[in-house]
């Protein structure tokens, strides 16, 4: 049901602008909505980050995937179990660029011979999410051609490499096909794996359908209906130069559907699990060095009026009573 409702929501986000533009509301979907979306995105994103930054971290809780630094003759993993800022930096770079923690993903199965639980390596989640995220990045970089004038050379290089197979005209971008593969796998994983389906909620399906909707409308515009790209660029340039106006040439309704889905993504972003984009940098389990045995971790919500009370002072307070009760004490009398 959750999948079905998410699908319907995305469908509505395509149909509403499609009909709305037919009724002459193109300025609403083409100009007003993008501005609203970007403002909600920026304010919402900042507020989520500030909210997290304000939350105290009471304990030193990095998750570690390697040997801790200890005696000099024990080999340790500086990136999996960092002890300083440099190590954490490397760990975060690898985490963000290579998704190392997903690489460790395992699957649990009941073994056939007897009631034994078996764990096996499960790399497909890592592979397909990596494909998806890099294609998404590449598509965003390529889309800069709609927002910049003159177009930087790097965008041209990205386009050239992405279309290097020179299939068809307009040339097919490999990233368009690959992002579909990535998204469809991530969706299939939630739909067909019973264990994952059981824990999948509407807020897991919705972003997947939303992204699929964005990609499908984009593919539709480029390879099927052939929208007037110059008119679209006139619109996007008028938006980013803060002098919004509608282009004189007509724009196909599918552009507004694409744009509305993108705006929905941006509006939804700060309130959803997609905030892992910013949240990864504020996760105590990722960004804290594993220092719990080398330095004292001061819980920031400790009341400063309550002073530390050492064992020595405790013994001073209760020495007689402890000796009377027969408890061992460090200092006699």
């Amino acid at each position, binding site marked *: 049901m959750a999948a079905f409702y998410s699908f319907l929501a995305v469908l509505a986000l395509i149909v509403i602008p499609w009909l709305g533009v037919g009724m002459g509301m193109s300025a609403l979907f083409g100009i007003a909505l993008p501005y609203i979306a970007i403002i909600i995105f920026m304010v919402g994103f900042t507020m989520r980050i500030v909210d997290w930054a304000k939350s105290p971290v009471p304990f030193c809780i990095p998750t570690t995937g390697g040997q801790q630094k200890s005696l000099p003759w024990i080999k340790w993993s500086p990136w999996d179990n960092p002890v300083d800022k440099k190590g954490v930096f490397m760990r975060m770079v690898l985490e963000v660029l290579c998704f190392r923690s997903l690489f460790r993903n395992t699957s649990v199965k009941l073994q056939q011979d007897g009631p034994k639980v078996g764990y096996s390596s499960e790399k497909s989640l890592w592979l397909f999410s990596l494909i998806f995220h890099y294609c998404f990045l590449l598509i965003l970089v390529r889309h800069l051609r709609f927002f910049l004038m*003159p177009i930087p050379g790097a965008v041209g290089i990205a386009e050239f490499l992405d279309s290097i197979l020179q299939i068809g005209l307009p040339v097919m971008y490999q990233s368009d096909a690959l992002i579909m593969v990535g998204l469809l796998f991530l969706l299939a994983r939630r739909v067909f794996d019973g264990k994952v389906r059981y824990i999948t909620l509407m807020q897991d399906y919705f972003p997947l359908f939303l992204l699929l909707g964005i990609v499908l409308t984009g593919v539709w515009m480029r390879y099927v209906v052939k929208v*007037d790209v110059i008119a679209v660029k006139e619109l996007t*340039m008028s938006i980013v130069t803060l002098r919004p106006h509608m282009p004189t040439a007509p724009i196909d309704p599918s552009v507004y559907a694409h744009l509305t889905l993108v705006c929905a993504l941006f509006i939804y972003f700060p309130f959803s699990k997609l905030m892992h984009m910013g949240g990864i940098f504020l996760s105590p389990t990722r960004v804290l060095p594993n220092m719990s045995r080398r330095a004292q971790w001061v819980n920031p919500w400790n009341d400063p009026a309550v002073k530390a009370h050492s064992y020595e002072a405790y013994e001073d307070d209760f020495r007689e009573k402890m000796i009377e009760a027969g408890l061992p004490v460090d200092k006699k009398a």
Partner: protein
Amino acid sequence: MYNAKYIIPGILFFLALAFVPVIYNQGHVFEVKPELPKDQKECVLPTTEMRDKHMQLLNEWRNEAVRDGSRIFINAKGQKYVKSLTNTCMSCHPDKTKFCDRCHETVGVAPYCWDCHNLSPNQKSPIPPVASAAAGGH
């Protein structure tokens, strides 16, 4: 707020990204003015259709000409054209830099056709080097 010395610059950097296009585009105007042929009135297809779909038309022409040997295109009005990039398109739109490129540069497409095809029909050494056949050179 904890770790403000990392988080505040981080947020500011992130928000600044949104303003990159605003600043980058300052002083540049976006206008597309391909030089249209003066002695001709009509393109192969209606102008709006040409504008959006000329690459699809070229693709059809290429495939039909090269694979099926069908080299004559008849449009909805019954006019006949030779299916050729250089000989047909470039005879009415002779200057690539003032026509094709003016649009393509503004939207960042760089068709690779000119790696092989000649820019203008009257160029001396046609590539591929075949003497003008019935349907013309290339």
